[in-house]
Every structure is written in C-alpha cells, then in structure tokens.
C-alpha cells in the first residue's frame, strides 16, 4: 500500500528535528563505515599492486634445489622448460616474468642493511615502471651490467645516491661470503614494507653473486588475465607440472624465505617446485588489512548499537504521540499487520535515506582525502603500502555495509512496531486530546 510510504515520509518531515537527528546519526555511522571500508580497500589494492610488482606474481612457480639434504638454494633449475609447461597448460596466462632471488647484506661506505635481492630483466617487466616512481636515476640503466635499483629509505640509510657503488655480500651455504659491486642507477619512492626489503638488479648480477649458471632462476612470476580464476589456475598448474615430471612441494602459504629452515630439515635432494599465490607471499603483512577491518567493524558495531537504541527510543515516542491515530486507523478497519508495516516502513525509509546520504558522504570524503594526497608518517607507510592515504571504491563492500545498517535499524524497529500493532482500537475513543 503506497499510502503507507506517503504517511511514513510525511511523518518524518513533520517531525523534522527528530528525523534529522536520528537520520544524521545513521548517516554519520554509514559515512564512517564507508570511509574506513574504502581505506581498507585502498590499502588492499595498494598492497596488491606493490606486492605483485615487487614481491610476487599472481602465482609463483618457485622451489628449492638441494645438493645435499641440509643445503638448499631457492632456485628452479632449467627454468625455461618449466616456463614452457606453464605456457602450454595455462591459457589464462598473461605473461611470465623470471625473477632472480636472494637474501644478502647491502653495504655502503657508511652503513649496511639486509635486503631481498630481485634479479630482473627491466625490458621484460610490463608494469614495473608504472607502479614504481623514481626519486632519481633511470629505469633503463638497469639493463646495463652491475647496476642496482634501491628505494628511498634504503638510500637514506646507506647514505648513497645515484652513481654511487654499493657492495652486496651474500652468505653461501658453505659459510663463506660472496660479494659483488653494483652501481646505484635508480632510487625509487618507497612503497610500504616491501620496498624496505628489496633491491633490484639485472639477472646476471644475482647469478654472479651466487655463482650459478643462467639456466637457474629464483622464481617464475606468473601473471594471469583473470584474478578470480586464481584457485582454478593453481590446480591446473599443480597437475600439469606433476604430469611433466616435477616433484611438487606441499602447498604452504608462507613467504619463501621463511621456508628455508623446514626445507633444510627435510630429507631429500634435487629439485622441488613450490607453488604459491600472491597472498601466500604477503601473508606476513596481511594483518594490516585485518586490523583496519577489525577496527571498522568494532567501531561501527558500537555506533550501530547506539543508533539502534536511538531508533527504538524515537519510535516509542512517535507511537506514544500517535496512539490516537493508531486507534483511529484500527477502528476504521486497518489490520494489525498494516499498522506494524506502517511503522516499520517509516523506520526503513528514514534508515534507507540516511544510509544512502551517509554512503555518498563517505565516498565523497574518501575521494577528497584521496585527492589531497595526505602524506602518511613513515612508520605507518610500511603497513599501508603507500606514502599517501589511498582509498578505493569497492562496490560490493559499500552495498554490503549499507545493507547491514539498513537491516539492523529496520529489524529493531519491529519491536516498537509490534507494540503499536497491539494497541487496541478503543484508544481512538479514549484519547480526547
């Protein structure tokens, strides 16, 4: 009965102050929820971008080679064959990037730090140049031998600039240290925690350092066209690599450098292939998103409880004020169910309008803060994966949040509405006001 909507809206307008206060509160909570949700989505997106540029492919085909049971190297031997298997069996592949991997000490004249070494071919990295922003230097210089790209914070700690030479010193399985000299050719802006632990150099430099031949590769970063296909693609790869004769490691959602210990303790030699997803490789940092989401949910839950109490309260008042009207409508033949709908519709209308408004505010606020490029303190940058506050619009999560708020407020309105429906029609006659 559309008239019930009309009555609801007109009553809301009639009690403008009450509606605005309550609606404002609902809108405020929605705004906060949407704002924080967008932040969480933003961090998630930044994390995904940074991680899949620096740290991992969508799927990583890596593994360990063991000469003896206790000595492992994080490499895939004869990697081009593996690449062929991947290309042949997985139609979803967009491209495959071979990455050298290592873990070493980076030493300058004044200081030193630990970093993951990434061997790359700058000309075969489609998005590398788009995602990283250079402070100084030149990406293309990385195609020259014995060069290195480091990040801003590293450069500061090492006190080096473009053109300076740093020493990479890696501890070999036999206990000796291998070193190579590399020339800093580019300094990139930090992108969260990944940039603190990564330096990029040509493949040849990694091979030189570890004295391995160029048939070996740290990992193959597989980028796929449809990220939603990832679990399926993982299955396909696991199957086809097994069929191609490779021994697969059990799936283990941890970053490769944590796996050394357990791999060294295992009793096998030769090559094993380890399949991981991008999420596995950054599992150690995912608590950031969990924390933002946790704060969001706790905060909105508390505020939602307050709002729910507010709705109940305001509806008790409204029902009290409108006792005579309810009695009249019951007397002239309105069924209880309709009386109940009348009040539920009123609560729903207020809540829906307020939530919609709040969502628009929340998205606007997120958009504005995003556009202001507000600088994040260095400490927080590590975990927010970006040097400015970044927000991202996630349609599904926005709709979801709105549904929760509208749902909770409408549901709670059932209680006072039920009481309104139980009012006796005789009250119409008894109230003489």
């Amino acid at each position, binding site marked *: 009965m559309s008239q019930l909507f009309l*009555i609801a809206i007109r009553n809301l307008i009639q009690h403008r102050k009450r509606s605005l206060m309550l609606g404002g509160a609902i809108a405020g909570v929605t705004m906060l929820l949407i704002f924080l949700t967008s932040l969480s989505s933003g961090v998630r997106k930044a994390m995904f971008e940074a991680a899949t540029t620096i740290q991992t492919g969508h799927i990583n085909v890596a593994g360990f080679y063991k000469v003896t049971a206790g000595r492992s190297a994080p490499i895939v031997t004869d990697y081009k064959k593996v690449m062929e298997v991947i290309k042949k069996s997985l139609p979803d592949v967009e491209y495959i990037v071979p990455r050298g991997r290592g873990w070493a000490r980076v030493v300058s004249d004044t200081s030193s730090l630990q970093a993951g070494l990434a061997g790359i071919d700058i000309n075969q990295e489609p998005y590398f140049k788009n995602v990283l922003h250079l402070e100084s230097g030149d990406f293309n210089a990385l195609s020259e031998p014995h060069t290195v790209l480091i990040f801003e914070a590293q450069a500061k700690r090492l006190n080096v600039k473009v053109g300076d030479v740093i020493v990479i010193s890696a501890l070999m399985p036999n206990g000796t240290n291998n070193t190579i000299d590399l020339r800093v050719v580019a300094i990139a802006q930090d992108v969260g925690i990944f940039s603190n632990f990564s330096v990029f150099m040509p493949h040849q430099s990694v091979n030189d350092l570890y004295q391995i031949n160029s048939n070996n590769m740290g990992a193959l970063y597989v980028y796929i066209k449809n990220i939603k296909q990832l679990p399926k693609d993982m299955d396909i790869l696991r199957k086809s690599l097994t069929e191609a004769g490779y021994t697969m490691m059990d799936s283990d959602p941890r970053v490769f450098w944590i796996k050394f210990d357990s791999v060294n303790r295992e009793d096998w030699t030769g090559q094993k292939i380890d399949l991981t997803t991008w999420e596995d490789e950054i599992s150690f940092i995912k608590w950031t998103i969990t924390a933002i989401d946790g704060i969001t949910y706790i905060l909105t839950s508390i505020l939602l409880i307050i709002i729910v109490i507010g709705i109940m309260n305001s509806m008790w008042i409204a029902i009290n004020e409108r006792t005579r009207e309810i009695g009249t409508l019951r007397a002239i033949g309105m069924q209880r169910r309709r009386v109940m709908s009348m009040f539920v519709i009123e609560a729903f209308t207020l809540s829906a309008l307020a939530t919609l408004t709040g969502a628009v505010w929340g998205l606007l606020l997120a958009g504005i803060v995003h556009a202001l490029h507000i600088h994040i303190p260095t400490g927080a940058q590590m975990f927010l994966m970006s040097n400015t506050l970044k927000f991202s619009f996630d349609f599904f999560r926005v709709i979801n949040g709105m549904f929760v708020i509208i749902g909770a407020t409408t549901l709670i309105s059932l209680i006072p509405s039920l009481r309104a429906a139980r009012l006796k029609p005789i009250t119409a006659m008894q109230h003489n006001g």
Partner: protein
Amino acid sequence: MENVVSLEQVNKNYILGKTTVNALRNVSLVVAKGDFISIAGPSGSGKTTLLNLIGCVDIATSGHVIINDQDTHDLSDRQLTELRLNTIGFIFQSFNLVSVLSVFQNVEFPLLLQGKISVEERKTRVMDLLKKVGIENHSKHRPNELSGGQRQRVAIARALVTRPKIILADEPTANLDSKTGETIIDLMKEMNEQEKTTFIFSTHDARVMAHANTIINIADGQIVGNQMADKNKSSVKTSAKSKKTDKTKSKSSVKLQGKTK
C-alpha cells in the same frame, strides 16, 4: 425490516482496582436498517461504552452483540477489523483525521484498506462524497488547515466512503459550536436519507438529539426509555435548515427491550 444491530442482555464491566464499574447493565436493543438514532444521556451514563460495543472496538462482558448477523463474541481480532472496515463507519468527537494526509487522502484511505476498487473509481467516489458534504474545494488541504466543522465534514465523508451499513458517531458535535453542530447533524441526516445508511450518534445536547428519529435515553448504564422524536422535532426543526423529515420519521423502529425503572 432488516436489523443491522441487535444487543441481547449486554453487560459491560470495567475493573478499576478493587471495584467493578458496571458501565452497561442488561442492555437489549434492536436497530433497523436506515434509522437515525440518538443515544442521549448525561456524562458517564455509558453512551461511549455502548457505541464501542456496537462498533466492535470493545467486547461485552456478557450478553450478545450482533452486528450484521454476526455475533461479535465469536470473531477474532482480524475478523472484527474486517467487520469494522466493511460494515461500520466511525465519526469521532475530535474528528481523528490523519494529520499528514490531505482531505482527499483521508477520505480515500478506507477504500485503500479495502483494496477493492480501481484508482478512477476511488477518485470519483471520493470527489462525489466531498461534494456532498460541501468540502470539495478543500480536497488538497491538510486537516489542520480546516475549521472544526469542515474537519467533521471530512470525517463524515470518510465514514461514508465504504458505503457501510452503520455509522457510529460518539458526540460528533461536542467539539463544535452549537450552530456548526447543528449543520453537521443536518448533514448526517441528509446522508442518512440519501445513502440509506443507519446512523447512531450519542449526545448530551438536547438540541442535537432533537434531530433524531429515535432517541434512546441512557442513565447509569441502563436504557431508561426511548422517544419517537416526532413532537420535539417539529418544535426544534424550525430553527434548523428546514428540510425533509416526513418520510424518515415513519421509519423509526428502535425496539427497546431493556429493563426500565
């Protein structure tokens, strides 16, 4: 003659703390279709209680209240609501219009509850009625933009819109000045004649009750007598709008079966 209302040995008690108020005592009466009845009596005599029982908004403590051949004792809340919607129209002392709806929407509302007729039909029926009660020019106004008399006209139209068999009006003129009150009663009378709707209204105003075909006198919860209002009427009628009455008078057919002291 068809009876639309019949009460048999009806008692209504209210429990107030430790005492019981006997608001109605052994009331029996029969109302025929098309009658125009006034329930008269001083304040506290039980007029409202009686109308509430007839209007199916309250249940008798004992006895039978039969409306449109249905004993209200046997009906669920749902069925009673249906009965009120389809068989009874209400006119209240303080008008009781829905303040956020326009005059038109207020009158249309019972039709929407019924959900039986189309938009166009609703529109013509409501506008016709508004015309009949002389308020068609205010159809878009809200109730609070109208005078008391105008509001009661809207209420009358709302009560009539579903073409009920019975219209109940509890002191419909109590909140109006006496002149407006009389025009409202005249209007009710006119509708009674045109639509053949049974009207039962209460009042303690002698001038108002004089318009009725039949007056049921009630005191202390008991019916104490009735008058076929012919004599009073002619004397009072001259001051009112002067119309009709001759044929309706003969219709008066309230039979009183209550104990009279």
